């Protein structure tokens, strides 16, 4: 009934809006082809210049991450959008976006602030660089995984009251891959070696590990900006996604603009997981997810700082 009710409401959308949407908005397509091509070439040249400048000046996470996207765009093997009729427009738009991103990457303020998920914790997020000009924000960060402070626990007793909240053991079909690559909770090679050695020695191994990840949504001064951080690389580095933090197509909410500073909240999620490997089978059970808001305040780069 729920979907049916929503569907009924949407059926009454004004026919004028429906008609308007039969053809897509195409402001950018009104550009003449020759002009498009010229802009495209100019944007590509500018990108190369900006890319070199950004890398030569200083290595920054934002510069590295965003610059590599720009390089990717120039790769002739990059065919993913070539089938599109508006490929030239798309590429031009992407280049313009990368230009803006690299411009910001060159203006960030270096930081080195570790914000733990709880006082004294080794798990948390380190802010390495930031940018806020009143209209746009950008951040380069490093994610410190929960397993830094809570290593794998072997020889556990599942009848211990500490495991009361654990869910039911579920079979998994990735036994071989798990031993070879681990998963979100088992990231270190030495852990995988230890698990394999115990399995070989005892024929069975049960252990508890911690998984940690970032919730997709990012908040600024309490406003949900949507899912807007990039992927976390193997070393924990990530950026606040450039596409929507005012740099690209979506503006920051009005309540977050032109302030002396802004507090960005990332939600750090932690979960205990119990694994049991026996012979060639793998089973696991999860605990409820715990969420820790990590608040990072960044100053407005364009306003004089109080001394």
């Amino acid at each position, binding site marked *: 009934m*729920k*979907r049916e009710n929503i569907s009924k409401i949407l*059926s*009454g959308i004004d026919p004028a809006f429906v008609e308007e949407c039969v053809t*897509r908005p195409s402001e950018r397509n009104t550009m003449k082809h020759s002009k498009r091509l010229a802009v495209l070439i100019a944007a590509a040249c500018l990108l190369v210049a900006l890319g070199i400048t950004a890398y030569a000046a200083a290595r920054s996470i934002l510069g590295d991450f965003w610059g590599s996207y720009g390089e990717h765009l120039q790769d002739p093997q990059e065919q993913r959008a070539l089938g599109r009729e508006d490929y030239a427009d798309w590429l031009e738009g992407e280049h313009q976006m990368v230009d803006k991103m690299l411009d910001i990457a060159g203006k960030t303020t270096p930081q080195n602030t570790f914000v733990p998920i709880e006082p004294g914790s080794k798990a948390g997020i380190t802010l390495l660089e930031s940018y806020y000009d009143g209209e746009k924000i950008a951040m380069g960060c490093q994610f410190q995984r929960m397993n830094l402070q809570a290593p794998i626990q072997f020889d556990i007793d599942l009848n211990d009251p500490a495991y009361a909240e654990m869910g039911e053991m579920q079979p998994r079909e990735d036994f071989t891959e798990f031993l070879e690559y681990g998963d979100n909770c088992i990231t270190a090679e030495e852990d995988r070696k230890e698990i394999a050695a115990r399995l070989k020695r005892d024929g069975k191994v049960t252990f508890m590990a911690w998984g940690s990840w970032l919730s997709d949504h990012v908040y600024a001064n309490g406003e949900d900006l949507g899912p*807007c951080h990039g992927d976390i690389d193997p070393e924990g580095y990530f950026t606040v996604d450039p596409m*929507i933090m005012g740099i690209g197509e979506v503006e920051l909410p009005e309540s977050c603009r032109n302030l002396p500073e802004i507090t960005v909240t990332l939600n750090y999620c932690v979960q205990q997981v119990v694994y049991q490997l026996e012979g060639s089978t793998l089973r696991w059970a999860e605990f409820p997810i715990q969420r820790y808001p990590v608040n990072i305040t960044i100053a407005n780069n364009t306003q004089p700082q109080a001394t």
Partner: protein
Amino acid sequence: MEDQKIVALLFERSEQGMTELIAKYGKLLQGIARNILGNALDAEECANDTYLSVWNAIPPEQPRSLAAFCCAIARNNALSRYQWDNAQKRNSHYAIALDELGESIPALGNAESETEARELTDGINRFLAAQKKEDRYLFVRRYYFADSVAELAAQMGKSPHSVSVRLFRIREKLQKYLRKEGLLP
């Protein structure tokens, strides 16, 4: 061919009118049905039903907008084929889109009376009228035409991620608007 000419041909009961309508809007109507039904064969049948419905409706109907008129018929035909008893299955773009909207604005799913539904529809129309054209396009294509995020991204020349985020922001704004208007608790 212009819509007015197609309508004139349909009024004359000329099959040429139907041929022109199919050439102009066939792909669009089939796309709506495919998005809702999640199945190309059913979508084709549904599109054929739509052509027949349009043929039967014009005359006497003389739609102000032929495109919107055909879209509404295609959508209604597809919805009546939609298996509501399979409501738990997210087997089409439409089901996913409805769930997306329902998760953001749960109160929409609880509007069971005709009056409540009509008030919310009117509220959504007023909200859409106040939006930028591009945001209106995204909302209508996603939740009326049931286009997937990937399709919208390709149409708009943006990344799927940025389309998702933009839709998320539009839903948030819509919820705030409907609350302010007293249409949501």
